Structure formats: structure tokens, C-alpha cells
């Protein structure tokens, strides 16, 4: 019982840096510029539907791509030798040692119309070949300042958060369970479908949570990779605090609506996850 006190620093930390700001967000959201209690901040929320749609659609696509790339990677990695796994884990973590913004700046240089990819393709004569075959007049692939580039930025930055939880869950599946399935005559695809996949779902769910939430609320990516042409929720909220429209009350209201939507989605997903295996998401 005494050991409970060891958690005290974290509880204090949470209270100051998580709970208190949350309360402030709620207070700001329900007050006006003059400090009076009001619902005005929410009455115009309909205006911002495009920003909600942009953010949720792009985050959804990015999360789906992360599952498609991350799940097979985590699955095959868990079957590898210890040494390979260690090196691969290292490589997955390595980009995270560098600042998020710097990595994104690097992508700007790579994706630009005069960027590394286009320069390379042009140097090897790819565009000449392409134009000769298709009769087009292509000088570069236009990649930067598109929604695709924003999704790429999300996938690149958040993929490790998908791979790691899936990997750690699959890695811990008791080999005896798989052997038992095989003993009972299951084919290897059946073992995967009936045993491994359901057992790995908690990892997928926490991966989805850890990719989807930062993707929904991200803001610099749209500015840097999307040319500022696709307004995401993060940008909209930032605009209310540090940008052109100074209105922290509206900003808090938008942030609050976003949090509620995400919470509801997570609650639905957890319900779905519990139905499968009765394991709570990390």
C-alpha cells in the first residue's frame, strides 16, 4: 500500500499539465471574449465542418495505410531472429530521435517539383521515356502541396506508433496456442485468421489510437506539405490562438468538439475490441 505514493509525482504532473489545462479549455469554450457564460462559440460550429471533414478523412486514410504497412511488418518481424528484430526495432525508432519538424522539412525537399525524387527521375531519363510512351509533356510529378503529401507526412511520422504496439502483442502470443491450433488440424491461414489475428487485435486497436489521434490534431503538416491549402482542425485551432483570427474561446470550443468526437470514436472502438477478446486497450 505504501508504494502507492511512488505514483504521486505523476499524479501531480497530470493534475497540473493535463487536468488543469483541460478544465481551462472547457471554461474558455463556454465563455465569451467579455468573460460571460455563453454558447455562442458552439453556434457557428457548422461553418467549420470542412475542417472537421478534412482532418478526419485524412487521419482515417493515414491510419488505414499505417495498418496495411505496419501489421505485416510487425507480424513478420515477430517471427525473425532476435538479432534481426533488434536491428529492425532500432531502424523503426531511429527517425524519432530527430525532431518532427526537421523530418517534415526534409520531405519538402524530397517531394518538391524540383526536389530529389523529380531530379532523380529526370536524371535517369524517366520523364523522357514516360513522355515517349504516353505522348505526354511531363517534366515532374507534382507531389508537394497536395492532400496526398499531408497523408504521407502523417504515415511517415506516426507509423512507428502502429508497428510497436502490434509487434509487442504478437510477440507475446504463447506459441503453445498456435501449436494447439495446428494439432487440431488448422491450416496456416486458418491459424492466422482464427488465432493470431484475433489475439493481436488489442495491439491494432492501441496502434489505431496512437496514430489516429495525433493525425486528427496535427497542424504543421498541412502548412508544410499541403501548402496551407487544406485547412485541418489543428490549423484552425492554432489560427484562433496564434494566427489571423485571435479568439481563444472559439479555439477552445473547436478543440473541445474535436476531443468529444475522438472520445466517442475511441469508446466505440474499445467496445468492439472487448467483444473480441475481453482485453482492454493499452
Amino acid at each position, binding site marked *: 500500500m505504501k508504494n502507492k505514493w511512488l505514483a504521486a509525482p505523476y499524479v501531480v504532473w497530470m493534475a497540473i499539465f493535463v487536468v488543469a489545462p483541460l478544465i481551462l479549455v472547457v471554461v474558455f469554450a463556454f465563455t465569451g471574449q467579455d468573460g460571460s457564460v455563453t454558447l455562442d462559440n458552439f453556434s457557428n460550429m457548422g461553418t467549420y465542418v*470542412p475542417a472537421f471533414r478534412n482532418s478526419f478523412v485524412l487521419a482515417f486514410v493515414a491510419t488505414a495505410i499505417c495498418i496495411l504497412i505496419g501489421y505485416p511488418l510487425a507480424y513478420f518481424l515477430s517471427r525473425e531472429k532476435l538479432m534481426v528484430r533488434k536491428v529492425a526495432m532500432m531502424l523503426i525508432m531511429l527517425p524519432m530521435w530527430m525532431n518532427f519538424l526537421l523530418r517534415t522539412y526534409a520531405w519538402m525537399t524530397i517531394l518538391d517539383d524540383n526536389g530529389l525524387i523529380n531530379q532523380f527521375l529526370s536524371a535517369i531519363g524517366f520523364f523522357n521515356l514516360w513522355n515517349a510512351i504516353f505522348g505526354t509533356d511531363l517534366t515532374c510529378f507534382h507531389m508537394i502541396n497536395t492532400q496526398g503529401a499531408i497523408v504521407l507526412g502523417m504515415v511517415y511520422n506516426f507509423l512507428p506508433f502502429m508497428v510497436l504496439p502490434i509487434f509487442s502483442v504478437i510477440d507475446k502470443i504463447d506459441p503453445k496456442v498456435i501449436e494447439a491450433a495446428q494439432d487440431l488440424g488448422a491450416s496456416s491461414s486458418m491459424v492466422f485468421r482464427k488465432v493470431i489475428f484475433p489475439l493481436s487485435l488489442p495491439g491494432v486497436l492501441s496502434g489505431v489510437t496512437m496514430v489516429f489521434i495525433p493525425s486528427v490534431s496535427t497542424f504543421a503538416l498541412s502548412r508544410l506539405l499541403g501548402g496551407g491549402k487544406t485547412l485541418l482542425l489543428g490549423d484552425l485551432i492554432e489560427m484562433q490562438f496564434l494566427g489571423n483570427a*485571435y479568439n481563444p474561446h472559439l479555439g477552445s470550443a473547436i478543440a473541445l468538439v474535436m476531443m468529444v468526437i475522438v472520445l466517442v470514436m475511441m469508446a466505440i472502438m474499445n467496445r468492439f475490441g472487448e467483444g473480441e477478446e475481453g482485453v482492454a486497450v493499452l
Partner: protein
Amino acid sequence: MKKSLALLTTSALSLSLVLAGCGGGASGEANDPGSADKGVVNVYNWGVYIDDSVLEDFTAETGIKVNYDTYESNESMYGVLRNDGASYDVVIPSDYMISRMIEEDMLEPLNFDNIPNFEDIDPALKNPDYDPENQYSVPYMWGLLGIIYNTTMVDEAPTSWGTMFDEQYAGQILMFNNSRDAIGVALKYLGYSYNTTDEAQIKEAVDLLIQQKPLVQSYVMDEIFEKMQGGSAAIGAYYYGDFLTMQEVNPDLAFCLPEEGTNLYVDAMCIPKNAENKENAEIFINYMCSTQAGLKNCEEIWYSSPLLSVREELDPEVSGDPYAYPDQSILDQCESFKNLPANTLALYDSEWTRLMLASN
């Protein structure tokens, strides 16, 4: 027990008095270099807007340490100060933002006894519209806005703001990522004043910007340097001083003063209301108005200097540059931003959001 407590309190008190005395003394004799801690000055300036060595010179000369941060638009600077996000001693907003901050009581009047170099400021820039009695601000740099274009990427040299809306440059246009400047470009093209409060005119301008959105490569502020220098965009609106910097890197760039007229802006040094080191701030402002610092800054960022002595010292090629130090015929075509009434500012905010939310 009580005695020792009293002793402790007294010694703590006297210690704090000694410390306070030190602090006061330091700012009082700040011109004496080399001696103990002279405190700090927290400066908040535009990005890419100073010769960094000037800050080192300042510290070497005065002993005052400079904490230097940058912002990229008047609006983001305003947001930080309004949020009490940080306490700064010197900020360098543009004209219209200064008058807004004066109106909202966010600036501290300056003590010009501590800023003798103010004498060197061009009289034409003293007592400006944005600070009629010249109580709150000392000009830092000024200049003209115009169109920067890459001569290898356009068919003919632009003459009008209309180039920014020309469909043949689809995907090659860089537009301002802040409401006042972006809406200003459209207002000028339509022949309206930058300072119009007519709702219909502002909405018409934003409608035009929404039509323009599919043509825009990206909405930028200082990212424009990299994009114009690297040749990834053909056309962008930005400041003449920055154009000179970009042209050093990419000689293919050229500058156009649009025929509809353009924006003349002044960025001036101010002290925010809650500044903790007001005297150091005034020492800093005075130092920035010295010929030595002004010349270094001018030759680094190429904006027009408000200091008469700097203009004399500059290479005649620069000081004779008609866009850097324009004559009356050009000045007559220019208009400065003024602060807008609160309901117009609110309209700018909602119209800007409408533009940002519009689909491509």
C-alpha cells in the same frame, strides 16, 4: 526559536534588499561595459530581420544579454502577447498593428531621453499616422511591397497585381499566409483602399481570393525565400528588401511595382505594457538606431533604413535604388495599412477562415 526565526527573516530581507540594489544599479549604469551582470532584454522580432552579429555587438558593448525570439506575422505576435504567452521587452510590429496595440493599451510610452539616436530618424518617418505623437515607437525598417517573379518562368514581365490571379501561372503562384496582406493584394487589384471598411468590398476581395485558390501553389510567409530562390515558384508577393536578398541567391528574379499601387510599411520598435526590463529595452532600441548597427542590419536584410546617417554611409547604388528609397512619384502610389475598427477586424477573421476552408 522565535529569535532565530526573526534573525532568519531579517537576513533574508536584507539579502533581498542587497539583490534589489544590485538590480537597480545595473540598469542605471548600463553603458559601463565589462562589469557585473547587466540583466537581460527579451526581444521579439520578425524572422530573417536582423544581422545576428549586431546582437553580439550589443552584448559586448553594454553587457546586457539578449534573449531573441522571432515571429512570422503581426497577427501571431499579437496572439502571443495577448495570450500572455511570454513577456517581451522589445517587439517590432508593423504600422497598423502598432496603432491597434496603442488603442488596446498594450504598449508602454517610451522615454526618449534614453533614446538619443532617435534624432537620426528620417523626419518623414517621425510622428506617423500610426503613432501621431510619436510616443510609443521608433522606426526599425521600412519598405515597399511588390511582385517578385522569376524571369525564366514568366512570358512577359508583370505590371499589375492581376498577374497574381492569372490562370496561365496556375500552380506557380505564392500567396501571403496572413489575412491583412492577402486580402490587401486583392483589394488593391480591385482598385479599393487597403483600409476600406466596406463589407461588400472586403467580401468581393475574398471571393476573388477563393477563385484564385486553385491557382495558388502554397500560402507562405518566409518560406517564400526558399521557394523563389530554388525556382519552384514563378510569382509571389513580398517585400522589396527580401527581394534583394533572394536575388543575391537567384539572379533570375526580378521585382515589379504594380501599377495599381502598393503597400508602404514601417516596422517600428515598441515596448509592451508588461515589459520587465524597460530601461534595457530603451538601451536596445537606442543601440539599434546607431549608425553601426543600422548599417549592419541594412546590409544584411536590405530593407530601407529610417536612419539618415546609414543612408549616407550606404553604397550609392543602394541608397540611389528607386525602390529602396523611392521618390515622391512612387510614394504617391503607395498606401499604408491603418488599424481597422473591431467589426472590420472580425470580418477579416471570418472571411479569412472562409478562404482557408474553401475547397481547392
